[in-house]
């Protein structure tokens, strides 16, 4: 093939440009650490990266939901543990007061103690996690128990009104109830204790041993049941959280594989493209040194 002067120039220019472009590309990918800068770099990879990012965003959100729920449920359980203790205390006071060896004056004293327990349980019924009342159902911004005519009245959400449950999404299509309402665990025990206190004041020993003690036992099992339900849900959340963080780790790795540059590979690429660029430049400078013009005198 006949080579014209410009052909040689153009070919050399093209070679230099191509090797320079490769050099710049290699430099850029090492500098940014990303091989996926726009969809055309890898259309299938982009789609994968976008859905991984979306899943990661949602997983982070679910993890946040679960952590919030965990704190709420732990606080609920602590409150209910105190309620359990107080019921047990009340029960032993009731057993004591049911005995006819106890004087009426002593029984009055025991009734006072029951009244203190009523106040303590009532206060627990209004306990909070941050700004939310634990036992108010969906009406979590106002105290669930108010005192009217000396007795506690529940004002929170109920199953009957459809506003009892605080639900939290813990995964795609997976949700969990995080709360126990005041009317489930507090209303019963508060009314039993009020009755007990009255029976003590009135020295109604039959009522104490026949009715109040049995009611207290049923109230206690109510609380125990609620705590068992909570415990099961906390466990479910903890295992969900574990799964969640394992999946997040897995997705983060996958995402990195799709969009991040393999540093050692990129470094080698940079080295070789630099070499190719230098070679092209050398060839250019040598190629144009020779001309017949140098020899015509």
């Amino acid at each position, binding site marked *: *093939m*006949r*080579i*014209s*002067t*410009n*052909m040689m120039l*153009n*070919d050399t220019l*093209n070679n230099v440009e191509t090797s320079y472009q490769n050099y710049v590309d290699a430099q850029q990918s090492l500098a940014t650490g990303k091989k*996926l800068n*726009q*969809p*055309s*770099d*890898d*259309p*299938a990879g*982009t*789609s994968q*990266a*976008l*859905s991984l*990012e*979306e899943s990661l*965003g*949602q997983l*982070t*959100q*679910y993890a*946040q*939901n679960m952590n*919030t*729920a965990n704190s709420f449920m732990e606080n609920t359980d602590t409150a209910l543990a105190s309620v359990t203790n107080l019921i047990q205390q009340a029960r032993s006071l009731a057993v004591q007061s049911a005995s006819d060896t106890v004087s009426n004056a002593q029984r009055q004293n025991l009734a006072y103690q029951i009244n203190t327990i009523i106040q303590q349980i009532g206060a627990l019924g209004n306990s909070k996690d941050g*700004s*939310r009342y634990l036992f*108010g*159902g*969906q*009406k*979590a*911004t*106002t105290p669930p128990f108010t005192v009217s005519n000396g007795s506690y009245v529940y004002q929170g*959400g109920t199953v*009957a*009104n*459809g*506003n009892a449950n*605080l*639900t*939290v*999404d813990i995964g*795609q*299509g997976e*949700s969990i109830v995080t709360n126990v309402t005041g009317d489930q665990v507090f209303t019963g025990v508060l009314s039993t204790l009020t009755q007990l206190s009255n029976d003590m004041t009135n020295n109604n020993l039959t009522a104490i041993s026949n009715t109040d003690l049995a009611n207290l036992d049923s109230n206690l099992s109510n609380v125990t049941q609620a705590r068992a339900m909570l415990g099961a849900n906390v466990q479910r959340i903890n295992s969900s959280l574990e799964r969640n963080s394992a999946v997040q780790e897995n997705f983060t790795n996958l995402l990195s594989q799709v*969009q991040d540059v393999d540093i050692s590979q990129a470094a080698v690429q940079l080295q070789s493209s630099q070499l190719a660029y230098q070679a092209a430049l050398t060839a250019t400078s040598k190629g144009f040194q020779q*001309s*017949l*013009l140098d020899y*015509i005198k």
Partner: protein
Amino acid sequence: MSNSFLGINTAGSALIANQAVLDVISQNVSNVNTPGYSQQTANLTQMPPYTDSGVAFQSTQIGTGVQVSSITRATDEFVTQRLLSATSNQSQSNQLETTLNEVQGLYNEPGTNGLSNLMNTFFTSFQTLATNSEDSGIRTTVISNAQAMTGMFNSVSTGLTNMTTNLQGTIQSTITQANNLVGQIAKLNQQIMDGVVNDTHPNDLMDQRDQLISQLGNLVGVTTSQELSPSGQPNGMVDVYIGGMSIVQGTQSYKIPTQTETINNQPYLVNEGTPVQISGGTLGGMVQSINLIAGYQSNLDTIASSLITQVNQLHSSGYGLDGETGLNFFTGTNAATIQVNPQLVSNPNAIAAATPPAAGQSVSASNGDNASAISNLANTPIFGNNSILQQYNANITKIGADAQSFTNDYNNQTQIVQQLQSMQSSVSGVNIDEQMTNMLQYQRSYQAAAEMVTNINSMLDSLLSMVQ
């Protein structure tokens, strides 16, 4: 008996001819870097011989020297034709690559400012709202996340519309530019034909015309054919066509129609109602670009409108903290018009995070069940098996795949063009070393001829001194 001055005349013709060859070499060297220049060659032939019947020769022919019979340019018509169509394809794919790069820039994926992330953030902020529905700070966050998303929808949509408007303007100016070239080609046809008729070898005009045709091919794919005179010989003129439509017919040029359209994704010009396919050139690329952009725009509108419909349907059934219900979350119908309902912007408590309360009940502050339902739209299959987010990702993948294929096209076409340019340059390009060699050769011939003149002159001197 031959003329005493025959020899000096013969040598004189060599002086003139060699001088002419050196002139052509000079022209070649001067134009070594001129785009479109074809190397020229001075063709030497012997002069008609002189028949002598004298003393020295018995009735024989004797040469009378050398002349330049023609100056021709070195071209390969076949390579030129292939280069013309390859250049058109190259500029078309270059235009498409540019368009797609701009489109990708608008979408800004993958990135935190891309719609994929913004839509996802929008949906997850409804999750946060679901667990904190009474929190006014989070309600404000929901609004600002939603506004970031609608803002991006608006901006991508406006960007696409602006691209189309700009392309439409550029198409018209490209057609004007092409019409200008077409007019110049027709004018050159006239001048070249005059030259051919008068046998003056208008090489430089032909180079100029090839150059104009190549420029035209960059703008719009054209084919050419040599015109023949009635005797069947080329008359030097070239006819130019777009598709089957003639735009240069000898010395006559025709205006390129300004109306364009796309049929089956292929670009067309509309010539008095008849579609003429455009094969290549930036014009073809731009018409095709407009069609592609319209497709992306409509896909984006589908995403926006289903987002509007789905979110509004849930939102209007729910209740705000303040008991407000029946409100749409978004106003607008497509990517260009989607906005967060201004009523919600001024009163975030009206965001309907709650499901309807039971009859006779007021809204419970911590009911976030409707917010949770809205948030779960992120994973609800709406387009077949695809959720809104997945459908959007599929759109981005399509844009990426289009961009990648046009980039590959462009790279391939560039390779082809470079190869053909090399082939053309191999035939038509000037090689300085070669020209210098020729220069030395003809310089020597010139010197020899001059020596001959001196020599014969001294012979004639001797002859004349005899007479004295």
